[in-house]
């Protein structure tokens, strides 16, 4: 079954974030398994998330238990494709595609930075740090991302629990298993 992340030898230390920041910014390949939850005034959903990322391609499987009701979002150089039970759909941006087909969306284009605890390039941001110097809260593009928990994998401290809010939308991303540097199914 799924591989295990190595348990951290020690809790986070004060300068861990500085020491790993360069490696974190360079990290462009990973596989992660977790959950995504979304709460809006009209909707309250949850799903499993399996995300494979490489420099040229990302793939996110959003599914329920037994893999039912699954959707696969795939992006490659500006072209995005979403495959659901109803077929395959394309658009220029993942956000538009998800909103059209699933009725909800996540800021996918920035998520591959936020999920590493980094601001996305090209947009102003501000940030507060916790007492160990790790990002506590990041504000960018109207979103507020709170880093609630961290996990240690592949020699890096990586976010384990992100609460992302935008007006009355609350998205929760929990990463149960990080495998940085690994993407065995990169097509």
């Amino acid at each position: 079954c799924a591989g295990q992340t190595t348990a951290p030898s020690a809790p986070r230390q004060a300068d861990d974030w500085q020491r790993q920041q360069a490696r974190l910014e360079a990290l462009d390949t990973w596989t992660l398994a977790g959950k995504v939850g979304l709460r809006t005034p009209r909707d309250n959903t949850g799903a499993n998330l399996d995300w494979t990322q490489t420099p040229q391609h990302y793939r996110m499987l959003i599914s329920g238990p037994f893999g039912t009701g699954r959707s696969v979002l795939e992006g490659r150089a500006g072209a995005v494709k979403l495959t659901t039970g109803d077929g395959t759909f394309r658009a220029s941006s993942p956000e538009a595609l998800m909103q059209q087909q699933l009725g909800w969306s996540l800021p996918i284009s920035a998520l591959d930075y936020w999920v590493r605890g980094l601001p996305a390039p090209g947009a102003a941001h501000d940030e507060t740090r916790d007492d160990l110097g790790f990002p506590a809260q990041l504000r960018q593009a109207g979103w507020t991302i709170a880093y609630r928990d961290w996990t240690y994998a592949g020699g890096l401290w990586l976010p384990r629990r992100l609460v992302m809010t935008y007006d009355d939308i609350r998205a929760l991303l929990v990463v149960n298993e990080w495998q940085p540097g690994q993407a065995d199914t990169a097509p």
Partner: protein
Amino acid sequence: DPASVERLTRLLEPLKTYSADFDQQILDASGSSLQDTSGHMWLSRPGHFRWEVNEPYRQIVVSNGQEVTLYDPDLEQATIQPLDDRVTHTPALLLSGSASELAQNYEVTGQQQGTGETFTLKPKANDTLFEQLKLTFYSEKLGMLQMTDSTGQRTAIKFDHAEVNGNIDPDKFRFEIPASADVIREQSPATP
């Protein structure tokens, strides 16, 4: 064909309860793995089942025969839905449902490979979640269940250390939702 339906019914009919470890993989049309989870499943006919995912995260689905509760400890969210008694929509129910429904809802063909027998079921109705369901028995014991959908994606569930017709504590099919959880009631039937 009738012989396969009769054979499959004979394999499923004696199965009152079933408990096994599972390893579930979701594979894309080219066969590469999109998701790999494992845990334990309990079944008691009719309509009672518990599906507990342990790796790489925790998640629990419990059916008491009327309602299906999905609890996610990470999201602290519980979704309650009526159990969809259409066996074409609830594979787990197929195993914990009545075998006679099988013949009405599926075209069944069977193949023998050594001690393994694989039954391919194609739903007669076309509004189902999967285009094809395969049940594989090894020495008459359920070993694998595979569901393929219209896009060619496949959910393959392997069972291990199975115990058939053992007694299962009824509490397994009841679930106490933690007070802190968001409870979402959905009218649309569950299709676990």
